[in-house]
């Protein structure tokens, strides 16, 4: 892994973000409206149930963070395909892992900044526990990030395997995982068969942990451990999947036709 290669792609990704209006909207506007909608909902529900609104708001922050970190990685790659610049980038000597890793790092930096931005806005609505317990917040965010990156790598692998018309997976696949990760409801809500599946979703333990933090002000370490194990398992599966898809795309000519 050559650091100057990673730095070069990160430089390019940040230039694209700052010069591309829709990327700025994705990064700042949508999180802002999400937090405002659920923040106002939390004000409305204060008289009915103190926790419900804040819980939904807190889950939404982690949901948005998971979405942003995965989506940002994939959209950076998709934009290389759509702009017709993928061949040029690869011809300058990036290995498949340098290419992917750089995207993960730049996505992590921008998503982490947006996470802080969302938490700051949420504090206006009284959601301050994540600043009061920074260690727990960092742990939950870190595990969310690992799960999201594993999904981002999987999405890239699938697009390389299936072709660029499957680019829509970048903004659809994660939503299915969120649904099954039981964001604002417990896993028990699902039929029994789905409950088993939900237990191995990358964000189930994160959302359960967030709900527990809001309800009791504490976090059971089991959520962190289970969440971390599952996220790492996803990551371990996603890397060879990406390696295999890239190699296959190189073999059957798909890679040279991605842009």
């Amino acid at each position: 892994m050559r650091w100057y290669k990673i730095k070069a792609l990160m430089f390019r990704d940040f230039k694209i973000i700052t010069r591309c209006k829709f990327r700025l909207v994705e990064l700042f506007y949508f999180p802002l409206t999400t937090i405002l909608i659920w923040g106002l909902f939390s004000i409305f529900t204060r008289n009915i149930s103190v926790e419900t609104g804040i819980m939904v708001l807190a889950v939404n922050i982690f949901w948005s963070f998971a979405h942003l970190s995965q989506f940002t990685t994939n959209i950076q790659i998709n934009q290389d395909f759509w702009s017709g610049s993928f061949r040029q980038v690869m011809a300058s000597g990036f290995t498949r892992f340098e290419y992917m890793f750089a995207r993960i790092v730049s996505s992590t930096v921008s998503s982490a900044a947006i996470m802080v931005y969302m938490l700051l806005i949420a504090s206006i609505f009284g959601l301050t526990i994540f600043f009061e317990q920074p260690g727990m917040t960092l742990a939950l965010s870190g595990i969310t990030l690992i799960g999201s990156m594993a999904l981002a790598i999987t999405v890239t692998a699938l697009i390389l395997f299936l072709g660029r018309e499957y680019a829509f997976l970048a903004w659809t696949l994660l939503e299915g995982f969120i649904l099954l990760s039981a964001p604002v409801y417990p896993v028990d809500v699902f039929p029994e068969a789905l409950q088993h599946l939900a237990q191995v979703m990358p964000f189930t333990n994160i959302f359960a942990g967030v709900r527990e933090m809001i309800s009791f002000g504490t976090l059971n370490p089991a959520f962190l451990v289970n969440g971390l194990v599952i996220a790492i398992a996803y990551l371990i599966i996603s890397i060879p999947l990406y390696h295999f898809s890239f190699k296959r795309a190189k073999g059957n000519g798909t890679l040279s036709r991605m842009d």
Partner: protein
Amino acid sequence: MDAIKVSGVSKKFKEKGKTFWALRDVSFSVKKGEIFGILGPNGAGKTTLLNIMIKLVSPDSGRIEILGKDVSSDNNILEEMNFVSGDTKFHWVLRADDIMNFYAMAYNIPKEKRKERIEKLLTFFGIDDIRERKFDDLSTGEKMRLIFAKAMLNRPKILLLDEPTLGLDPAIAMRVRDEIKRVNRKFGTTVILTSHYMNEIEQLSDRIAFIHDGRIIDMGKVESVKLKRFGTYDVIIKVKKVLDKDSLEKQGFQVSGSVLKKRLAIGKSISNVLSTLQKNGYEVLDIETKKPTLEDYFVKILKKGVKPEGA
């Protein structure tokens, strides 16, 4: 020493259940500083060959060595090369200086040298006034010059050009050809050029390979490649007055008014023909030789479905 050595490279692709050969046992070598043209019809395998060189396609068999290094196993070799294709694009929102800075960083050009090198290249290609403009806002000519400026950032020892003038208007295409020559002469860059524009290949290449159905059919200097398929050329001579038509026809001339046409074997000089005419009292007004062009060669190969030598 050879800059590029391609040995027995083969590649098959599957499309809609059918397998076809993109490259079949392709072998050639290119010397340092040479411009090597690869021509052939669409789908002949030219682009696949370049895609293998830039590691976007893996060959089924064979080996490519660039500057003595095996392309498939050396990660750094692409930093000694650069690649331009006719459809090269950069991200539409990036400005010219973003693009140059990104590639300068990707080629690990030290920060203190980066700015100076970018300035020099933009000036060399006459585009130093576009640095703050977005790629999408540039004219076709400015885009092509930016692409070439980017291609020279890492001072490549090898430049791969895949149909670099595809879709360009004649004036810009001519400018691009000039740039290729200029870069080759100034920096001693070895160039592999693919095109199906015959005149382009003929003008630029020191040697050529004709590729068809994934196979190299002919290879060598342009003239010698044409010689392999054409044994003769025509000489058209305009004389003041035809004195003895029968005698001229007996000597193998076709006579039409005051215009004489004779077919000569390639390599045979026209001086003998002219001196014979002058001895017989003819006053020559104009001489034109019609040698087969690369285009004639191309058409002949495709019509006859010629097999590679030794096949």
